[in-house]
């Protein structure tokens, strides 16, 4: 089931959503970001109804891929964890299946899931290019795509520099989170420091 989500290209999800909710049902706008409110320092679509309506489909399209990826990750991690000895021990102790699955096994899958989710924030930036192109969202990704088509080097390189900055910050936060989430890493550090 989760494989279907990962096999469906991002742009196909967007096109299907447009076809069903935009063309056939006519519930949601199919392109653009709707009416915007000018706050002087910030123009935002989050304060108008049409702005919220136009963000539903792009947001769903972007989130869909991450959803299936995390599903697959948790599945494979659960398969590995459920084979370990401490799960067998928990079962032998007579704990209920729910308690074993959720309290013992799921907890141990969380470390890689949180790291990968953090790293996937970077992938979201790339998939935003596709999503913005499908929904004609006037964002940075669409600008970059047009820059590629017209071989516009200054725009391409400044986009790249900005994205690299994002990646550095995201990776730093993920590395810090790693130590917050995984107690083993903290123990190792304490051992290394000699206390």
């Amino acid at each position, binding site marked *: 089931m989760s*494989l*279907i989500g*990962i*096999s*469906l*290209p*991002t*742009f*196909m999800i967007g*096109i*299907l959503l*447009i*076809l069903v909710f935009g*063309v056939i049902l006519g519930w949601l706008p*199919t392109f653009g970001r709707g009416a915007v409110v000018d706050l002087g320092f910030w123009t935002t679509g989050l304060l108008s109804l049409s702005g919220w309506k136009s963000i539903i489909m792009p947001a769903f399209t972007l989130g869909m891929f991450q959803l299936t990826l995390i599903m697959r990750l948790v599945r494979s991690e659960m*398969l*590995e964890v459920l*084979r370990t000895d401490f799960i067998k021990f928990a079962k032998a102790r007579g704990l209920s299946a729910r308690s074993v699955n959720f309290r013992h096994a799921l907890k141990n899958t969380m470390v890689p899931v949180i790291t990968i989710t953090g*790293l996937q924030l*970077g*992938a979201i*930036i*790339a*998939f935003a*290019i*596709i999503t913005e*192109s*499908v929904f004609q969202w006037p964002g940075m990704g669409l600008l*970059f*795509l047009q*820059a*590629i*088509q017209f*071989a516009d*080097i200054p725009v*391409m390189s400044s986009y*790249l520099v900005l*994205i690299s900055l994002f*990646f550095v910050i995201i*990776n730093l936060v993920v590395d810090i989170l790693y130590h917050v989430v995984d107690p083993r890493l903290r123990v190792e550090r304490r051992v290394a420091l000699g206390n």
Partner: protein
Amino acid sequence: MAQSWTATLRERLDTDIAYSFRRTPITVVATVVTAAFLFAALFAPWISPQDPFDPASLDLLDAFTPPVWADGGTWRFWLGTDDQGRDIFSAILFGLRISLFVGFASVLFSLVVGVVLGLMAGYLGGIVDSIIMRVADVQLSFPNILIALLINGVARVVLPRASVEDLAVPVLVLSIGLSGWVNFARTVRGSTMVEKGKEYVQAARVIGRPTPMIMLRHVLPNVMGPVLVIATISLAVAILAEATLSFLSVGVPPTQPSLGTLVNSGNNYLFSGEWWIVIFPGATLALLVLAVNLLGDWLRDALNPRLR
């Protein structure tokens, strides 16, 4: 030299693999679907009812014919036609050809680059290892699509404008291939470092075999096993990447459309109700990628000793 990987594979084919293959019906279905797609792509010129590249066979009066079960559909174009009167079914067959070709070629390219670099990093170690692996780390932190887009954009700038269209497919193979070598390199490096310490490598070194020979003839055959699994999964990723780039109209030009280009050109007619131009190529693409992914998933589980 230890048992070669082909012999190991053949031995496994006799027992475990064949058994787990038979036990998972969905894998059998996926294999059949993939084989059908390969067959359709190979024999596209003979199967397709119309040559979509021959302007003489196109009739503008046939444009926007709906599929056969809708009002106004005919059996001549059972999946409908596009804005040029081109038969969608024939266009899909030919598009499948280009999609699969780009997919296979770019996986082969990243396999060769990745395996060679991974072997060098794992066997030589030291500064070679550091340089290759730092480059790999940098690339790994960027999403594949972004890297492929970048290489594609740079190629557009470097190449003369007139040749961009002719060189679109090689450029595409290069950009997708270069964006995918890291997985191969990391896996091969890992297993090379394990193999390096084994006795047969020491023996080869003692009898004075030159280092490149040891790497290619002795270590390489023993680290190729997992590469097969990664190649299958990479094929799905590469086909998706090609479709995505073509959809963003930086891939294959509309004159020789792949599945992604078909979706892109069909996308313009979505609002006027001609849904079949975009849905059928898209569904073919999704089905193909799903089948390849299923195969790769099964292969990984079947070859993973930890799950047996």
